[in-house]
C-alpha cells in the first residue's frame, strides 16, 4: 500500500513533497481530486490516483486545468472537499474560472495547489503564481518543509471551508520533488453526503456585494494567519539584519546563516502564510531591525508587499533599508540556493567564507566532462517524434516554399533542437501552435506564401487544440495540422488521457476519437504511421499542396517507452559492418550525424555505425533511412 494511504498516526515516513501534499489532502478527508499533469505537480494526483479506490476518493486526469478546477469546485459546491493541482502555466489556464470562483465563493474546502518551477527546469516559462492570490484576494500558503507541505494542505481545506473561498497552496520544484520525513496524522472516517442547495445559487453576482464579501473573508483570513504556527521568527532579539523569507528559500537562509556563523547577528522571519500578510506578526518582528533582506523565488512578492506594509506603518516601524531583488542584492530571476544567499550575506556582513576550494567547481566540471557521454537535448531511442520530424523536414525541403512548424508543449517541443532537426520555430502555451497557425493561415491575403504546419500531441489536442481547430474550420484558416498521437502524456510521466482508453484510477474508458472529432468539424483528415517514413513524408507533402483550409494528419505511433515497457523491442536491429560505408560520400554518417537516434553509435575505430543494444528500442526506422541498406531489422 502506498505510504500516503497508511493509517498510522504519529509514524514518520519518507515522502516526496508532492506525496506529502497528497497525504495532507487525505488527512483532510478530500473526496474529489482532479488535475491535468504538469511538472513539478504531477505526482500529487498521480499518487492520489493509486489510493483513490481504497480510500473512497474520486481522482481524475482532466483534459485541462480549468476543467480540473471546475470539477473540484463542483465537489465543494456539493459540500465535499476538493483538490486540484497544477503547474504555474496551468493556473493561467484555470485562472478565468478561479477569478470568478473567488467572488461566488465555495462550500466544502477547496484547495488549489500550484507547483511553481523556478528556473523553468521542466517548463516553457518562469512564473510566480503567487500574483494570482493577490489578484484574486485568495489565501496563500507556502510550505518550506515536507512536514509543512502535508500539514499546510490539511489546514488549507479547513481554512477554505471556514472562509468559503478557495485556498491556494504554492509549492516549488525543490519542495515538490525532494523527499523528507513526514509525521503522519489521522485519516478521517467521517462520511459527508454531497448535496447542492438549490435555494442558494453560487454565482459571482452582484459583484458589488460579492467583492465586498470577499474582502471581508480575506480580513478574517488575516486574523487566522496572525496566530499561525507556520509563521516563525528565529534569531536574536535585536539582529543587525532581518531576513524575510518563505518556501524553500527559508532552508537556504538557515544554511547560509549557519555556515557563516551569523546566528547572533541575523534574524529570520519565515512566513508560511504569504497572502494576506499577517500584519501584527510582521509588525512585531519588523521592529527588530532597520535593515531587511528578502529571500524568495521568483518575483519580489513578499518584498513588495512588505515594503508597502512598512510604508503604511511608517510611524511605528520607522525608516528601513530594504535589500532584495529591487536593490540588486538578490537575483531577480531563477531559483535560489544556499550559495546565492551565502554570497549576499558575505557581502552585507563583509565576512569571508570559502565552503570549498575556489577551483573545485572548475575541476568538477572537467572531471564530469571526461566521464559523462556527450549528449544533446533529445528524443528517446525509437521515439516516433524523431521519425515524424524527419518526414516533416524532408517534406518541407521538397516543397521548397520555406514552410515551417508551429509547436507547443509536449515531448515534441524538442523539435526546436537538433533531435527534431530544428523544425519547430515557435512554442509557447498548450495548443498555441494551432492558434498561431490560425493566424498565419490568414496571411495569404497580404502576400504570405509559406506553408504552415502546426503540431500538437494527443494530450495537448484534448487540452487546448480543439477550440483552435474549430476556429480554423470556421474562419477557413489555411494550414496543415499534425496531431502527434503517441497515445500517452509522455512528458509528464505517461498519464492516461481521453485517447488512451483508461482513467487515472485505472478503469476502462471510452476512447475519444481524434479523427472522428476532426472530421465532425469538417476538416480533411488522414492518418499515418510515422515509422513508415516515406509514406509519411509524401503524405505531408501532398497535404501541403492540397488546396486551402484546414487539413489534419494524425501521425500515430505509441510512445517508445510505453510500448517498450509492455512488450520489448519491435525489431532486432543491427548494422551490417560490410555494407556500412560510414563517412564515405554517399552516406557521411547519415544515421549518427543527422538522424541521431541515441540507439545508434558511431565507432570511430572501425569507421562504422553500430547499434547500442541497451538503448535501441527496435523501432526499425533507421533501416529505412540508411542509404546503403546496411541497417538490418529482423522481427524480434
Amino acid at each position, binding site marked *: 500500500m502506498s505510504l500516503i494511504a497508511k493509517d498510522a498516526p504519529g509514524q514518520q515516513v519518507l515522502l516526496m513533497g508532492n506525496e506529502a501534499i497528497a497525504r495532507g489532502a487525505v488527512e483532510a478527508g478530500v473526496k474529489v481530486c482532479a488535475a491535468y499533469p504538469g511538472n513539478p505537480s504531477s505526482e500529487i494526483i498521480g499518487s492520489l490516483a493509486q489510493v483513490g479506490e481504497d480510500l473512497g476518493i474520486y481522482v481524475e486526469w482532466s483534459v485541462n486545468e480549468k476543467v480540473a478546477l471546475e470539477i473540484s469546485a463542483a465537489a465543494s459546491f456539493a459540500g465535499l472537499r476538493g483538490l486540484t493541482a497544477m503547474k504555474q502555466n496551468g493556473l493561467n489556464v484555470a485562472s478565468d474560472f478561479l477569478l470568478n470562483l473567488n467572488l461566488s465563493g465555495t462550500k466544502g474546502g477547496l484547495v488549489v495547489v500550484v507547483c511553481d518551477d523556478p528556473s523553468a527546469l521542466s517548463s516553457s516559462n518562469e512564473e510566480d503564481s503567487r500574483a494570482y492570490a493577490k489578484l484574486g484576494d485568495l489565501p496563500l500558503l507556502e510550505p518550506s518543509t515536507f512536514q509543512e507541505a502535508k500539514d499546510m494542505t490539511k489546514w488549507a481545506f479547513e481554512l477554505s471551508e471556514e472562509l468559503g473561498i478557495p485556498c491556494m497552496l504554492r509549492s516549488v520544484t525543490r519542495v515538490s520533488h525532494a523527499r523528507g520525513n513526514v509525521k503522519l496524522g489521522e485519516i478521517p472516517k467521517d462520511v459527508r453526503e454531497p448535496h447542492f442547495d438549490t435555494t442558494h445559487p453560487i454565482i459571482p453576482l452582484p459583484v458589488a456585494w460579492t467583492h465586498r464579501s470577499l474582502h471581508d473573508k480575506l480580513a478574517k483570513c488575516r486574523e487566522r494567519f496572525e496566530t499561525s504556527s507556520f509563521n516563525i521568527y528565529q534569531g536574536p532579539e535585536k539582529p543587525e539584519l532581518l531576513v524575510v523569507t518563505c518556501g524553500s528559500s527559508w532552508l537556504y537562509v538557515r544554511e547560509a546563516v549557519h555556515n557563516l556563523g551569523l546566528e547572533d547577528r541575523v534574524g529570520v522571519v519565515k512566513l508560511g502564510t504569504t497572502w494576506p500578510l499577517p500584519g501584527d506578526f510582521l509588525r512585531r518582528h519588523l521592529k527588530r531591525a532597520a535593515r531587511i533582506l528578502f529571500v524568495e523565488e521568483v518575483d519580489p512578492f513578499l518584498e513588495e508587499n512588505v515594503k508597502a506594509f512598512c510604508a503604511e506603518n511608517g510611524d511605528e516601524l520607522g525608516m528601513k533599508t530594504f535589500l532584495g531583488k529591487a536593490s540588486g542584492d538578490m537575483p531577480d530571476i531563477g531559483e535560489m540556493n544556499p550559495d546565492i544567499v551565502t554570497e549576499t550575506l558575505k557581502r552585507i556582513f563583509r565576512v569571508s567564507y570559502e565552503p570549498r576550494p575556489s577551483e573545485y567547481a572548475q575541476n568538477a566540471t572537467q572531471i564530469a566532462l571526461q566521464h559523462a557521454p556527450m549528449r544533446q537535448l533529445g528524443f528517446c531511442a525509437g521515439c516516433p517524434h524523431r521519425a515524424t520530424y524527419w518526414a516533416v*523536414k524532408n517534406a518541407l525541403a*521538397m516543397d521548397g516554399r520555406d514552410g515551417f512548424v508551429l509547436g507547443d508543449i509536449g515531448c515534441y517541443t524538442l523539435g526546436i533542437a537538433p533531435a527534431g532537426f530544428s523544425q519547430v520555430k515557435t512554442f509557447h502555451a498548450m495548443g498555441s501552435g494551432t492558434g498561431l497557425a490560425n493566424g498565419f493561415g490568414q496571411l495569404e491575403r497580404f502576400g504570405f506564401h509559406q506553408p504552415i504546419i502546426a503540431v500538437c500531441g494527443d494530450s495537448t489536442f484534448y487540452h487546448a487544440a480543439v477550440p483552435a481547430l474549430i476556429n480554423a474550420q470556421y474562419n477557413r484558416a489555411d494550414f496543415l495540422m499534425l496531431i502527434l498521437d503517441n497515445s500517452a502524456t509522455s512528458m509528464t510521466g505517461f498519464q492516461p488521457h481521453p485517447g488512451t482508453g483508461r482513467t487515472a484510477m485505472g478503469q476502462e474508458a471510452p476512447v475519444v476519437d481524434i479523427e472522428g472529432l476532426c472530421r465532425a468539424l469538417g476538416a480533411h483528415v488522414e492518418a499515418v504511421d510515422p515509422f513508415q517514413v516515406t509514406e509519411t513524408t509524401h503524405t505531408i507533402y501532398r497535404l501541403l499542396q492540397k488546396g486551402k483550409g484546414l487539413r489534419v494528419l494524425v501521425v500515430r505511433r505509441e510512445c517508445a517507452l510505453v510500448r517498450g515497457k509492455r512488450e520489448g523491442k519491435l525489431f532486432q536491429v543491427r548494422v551490417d559492418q560490410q555494407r556500412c560505408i560510414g563517412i564515405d*560520400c554517399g552516406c*557521411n554518417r*547519415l544515421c549518427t550525424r543527422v538522424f541521431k537516434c541515441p540507439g545508434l553509435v558511431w565507432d570511430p575505430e572501425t569507421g562504422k555505425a553500430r547499434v547500442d543494444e541497451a538503448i535501441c528500442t527496435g523501432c526499425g526506422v533507421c533501416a529505412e*533511412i540508411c542509404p546503403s541498406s546496411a541497417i538490418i531489422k529482423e522481427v524480434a
Partner: protein
Amino acid sequence: MAENRGLQALEANVIQKDLCAFCGACLSLCPYLRSWGGRWVKLHDCDLAEGRCYAYCPRTELDLDAIHSGLLGGPYEDLAMGPFRRVVMAQCTDPQVRQRAQTGGVVSALMSLALDAGWIDAAVLTRRGEDQLPEGYLVRKREEVLICAGSSYVAAPTLEALNRGPWNGDERIGVVAIPCQVQALAKMRLSALERKTPIDRIALIVGLFCTWALTYRPFMEFVRIRVQGVPIQKMDITPPPERLLKVHTHGDVWNIPLDEIRSFIPPTCGVCLDMTSEWADLSVGTVEGMEGWNTVVVRTERGEELFERAEKEGLLEIRQLPEANFQHLRDASLLKKRRALKALQERGELATGYLKLSQEAVQRILEDGTEAES
C-alpha cells in the same frame, strides 16, 4: 584548412550563384540531394570535404583540355563544336517513329537499335511525367524508347536516374543527354573519386543540341495561367520565323510567342559553352530549314560504329549536310560559346569561375565568327 570540394562548395559556388543546370549529376548519389517537383532539393547538410556532387557538377571546374586529353587524348582543338569525325544529316526510315519524334527520329532509332542489338542493356532517357514534369527514365526494351521521344524544353534531372538505378551490376548503359549532362558524364568518367554508380559501364552517349532548358516551376505556372488551367497534353516549339510555343490541350492549341518564355531560361544556360554536346559519341539536333531531318555529329569510334550499323540495317537514311547548314551550325555553336564567355566576364567569373580554358582559347573564341553575331 583545405578548400571544400563537397556539398558546401557546391552550394556556395553553384546553387547560391544560380548556376545549377539541374542536370541531375549530383542527385540521388546520397540521401542528401534529390530532385522533387522540378527542383534541386537539399534534404540535409553534408560537411564532407570532398564529394561526388561537387566533382560531377558541370558548373564546377570544367577543364576542357583535361577532358579532351582524358577521354580522347590530345588537346582540345576544335573550339567551335568540339571533337568530331563527320557531320551529316539523317532521318529515321520508320515514319511511325518520325511521327512520335521531335524531328527526324534519329535518337529514337539509334537507342532502339542499341538496345535491340545488345549494344547496350539499358538506357537512361528523359520522359515527361505527370504535369509535363520531365524526369530521368530507365528503359530496358526498345518499345519503351518511344515513350521518351520528343523534346521537353524544360531542364530535366536525367542523370539522377543513372545515379539511382537500380542496376543489377553488369548492364552496359546508354544515355541520351543534353550538353550540361554530357559534360557531367565526362567529369564522372574522369573522376578519381570512388564510384558507386555504374559510370564505367556507360557504353553509349547520344548528345542533343541545346541552347537552353527552362526552369520547370515558374514556366509551368506561366503556361497554366496562359491556357486558363486546362490540362496540357503536349508542348512544341516551332522553328523560325514562326518562333512559337504551341501548347496542346484537349482539342485546342495555344500559341505563345517564344520571347514571352525567355524569362524562364535560367542564368546557367547563359554561361554554358556547349551547344552540341561535345563529349558525346554522337550529337543530334535539327537541320535549319529542313523539317523531318536531324543533323548528326559523329564524334567517336563507337558512335561511328553504331551510326554505320543503323544505316546498313536501313534504319536511317543519311545525306550529306549542305555546307551552308554546316557553317550555320558552327557559327551558332560559337555564338553560344562567345555569349557564355561574355556572361562570365560580366559576372566577374571568367578568371575565377568554373571554366578552365586557356586565355588564348578564350581570345580565339571571342574573336572568331564575329559575323555570326548578327
